[in-house]
């Protein structure tokens, strides 16, 4: 029998951390109450995810979250969950939890955020191995019909890119290898028949890759990134009458299915 369960039964060996009731809390070997108590919250989040303590990266992350991902517009798909939860008078946390879960989307959110970081690392490696940027970009588009981090639903231009770069420059960032690569891909695409332009997630991935953040780390760092825009949408909807959030009349259903009435059992 190859069962591993007996070894793990009532036995979770970990160096990640734990709570020792009435005594101490440990994260990655550090005492939270005495060694990490001066950390800012994002520094603590970053340390938990990466094991690194870097006020600089934490500040970069905080600025990016504010500029890019906390738009309190209830029409945005994830925010809309919070607004719908508000209009149905569900709880705020349930609205936020639903919004958080659907933020792992393909056309925005977590998949592009992780995906473009992964793209930049892979592209850099391929170029180092002799490929041209044009070849890599073209084959990526051919294979996946697009590139995470480039292009955007609703509008082509991303108004967040400039403020993001301005913020990065204020932090003495924005000139690193991966950020440059991200902008070179944008330049290549803008001169090609593809109409994709870089979006904020492409810039964020470049900036944080230059700080050594991996795609997987970026994914975890970005998990809560939309929350500050989500919660106001719930608060707003709760203040308005029940059910009032973009109500849909029956005629708003466009049925493309069976038009002829059918009778069950016949």
């Amino acid at each position, binding site marked *: 029998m190859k069962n591993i369960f007996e070894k793990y039964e009532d036995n979770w060996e970990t160096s990640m951390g734990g709570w020792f009731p009435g005594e101490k809390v440990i994260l990655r070997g550090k005492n939270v109450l005495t060694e990490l108590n001066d950390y800012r919250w994002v520094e603590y989040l970053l340390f938990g995810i990466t094991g690194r303590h870097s006020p600089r990266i934490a500040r970069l992350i905080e600025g990016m979250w504010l500029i890019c991902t906390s738009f309190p517009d209830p029409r945005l798909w994830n925010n809309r969950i919070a607004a719908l939860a508000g209009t149905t008078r569900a*709880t705020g946390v349930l609205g936020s939890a639903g919004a958080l879960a659907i933020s792992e989307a393909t056309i925005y959110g977590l998949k592009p955020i*992780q995906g473009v970081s992964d793209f930049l690392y892979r592209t850099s490696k391929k170029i180092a191995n002799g490929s041209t940027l044009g070849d890599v970009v073209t084959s990526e588009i051919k294979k996946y019909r697009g590139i995470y981090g480039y292009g955007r639903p609703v509008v082509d231009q991303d108004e967040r890119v400039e403020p993001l770069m301005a913020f990065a420059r204020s932090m003495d960032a924005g000139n690193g290898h991966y950020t440059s690569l991200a902008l070179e891909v944008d330049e290549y695409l803008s001169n090609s028949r593809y109409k994709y332009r870089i979006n904020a997630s492409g810039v964020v991935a470049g900036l944080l890759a230059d700080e050594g953040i991996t*795609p997987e780390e970026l994914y975890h760092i970005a998990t809560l990134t939309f929350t500050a825009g989500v919660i106001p949408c719930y608060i707003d909807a709760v203040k308005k009458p029940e059910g009032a959030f973009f109500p849909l009349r029956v005629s*708003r259903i*466009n*049925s493309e*299915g069976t038009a002829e*009435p*059918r009778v*069950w059992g016949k």
Partner: protein
Amino acid sequence: MTESNKKEQITTKIWREVAEDDNPFAAAACYCSGFDVYGDLLGKATYIEYLYLLFKLEPPAEHQKNLLEGLAIALANPGPRDHSVRAAMNAGVGGSTRASALIASVAVGAGNLGGGREVYNAVQYWEHCGNSLSAWEERINNPPTEERADVWQPMEHAPGFDPNGASCPTPVRQTLDYLVGVGRSDALTWLQQNRETLEAYADAPLAMSGVAAAVFHDLALTPDQSEMLFMLLRLPGAAVHALEQEGLGWRRYPFFGDGLKLQEVPPGESEGDL
């Protein structure tokens, strides 16, 4: 709201509504794939038949109904040791909202190990391999890989098989035998006949997720539909176990008080100030 915004619509093949005379925001009649849900289907169709109709847009034949009915019972309660049910009970013992119990259960029951994603992958295997043993052997030995990073972890075992199993558990075999008997199912019959060979390829026994995948494939459900329906069918157990533990409270529920053993942090996993 502009006039053009008013015209934005939800497009659906599943549903049609007729408005009440006194309220354009309320439906007087609702049709699911042409059937009047409240005027005709209610009282005639069973729940399982309606569930099938929602996914397939056609009523099931007798053997398809029996397959889905049997699977629904087999999946309804994985029992309180199952990861997804444990998630729901954690909500219960802490006094969390009932909704959070179901959310937690779906989240945990979504994964590659015994969850929705495993079924999604297993149905893809069925679509690729069908009833060809050599195709299954090849696929299990050389599973598809993806160059791009994904939010899903890569599979660590052959989908539909239990990497921590010893032999195929009795309930899995009982379910398979029953469904073969009622389902007139090619996939299930083939699975029953070749189970041990496939288990040898996978180096793991068949799991309930593997039986479910065969049923879904036989009902011609897509991997996406199968993933969704599998998660849906497992919720009743999560709900009742969460309610039960809510009543019993955290003191009578495992906390694994002596279970956590803190280790030294390996070099490189916790750096100082940068």
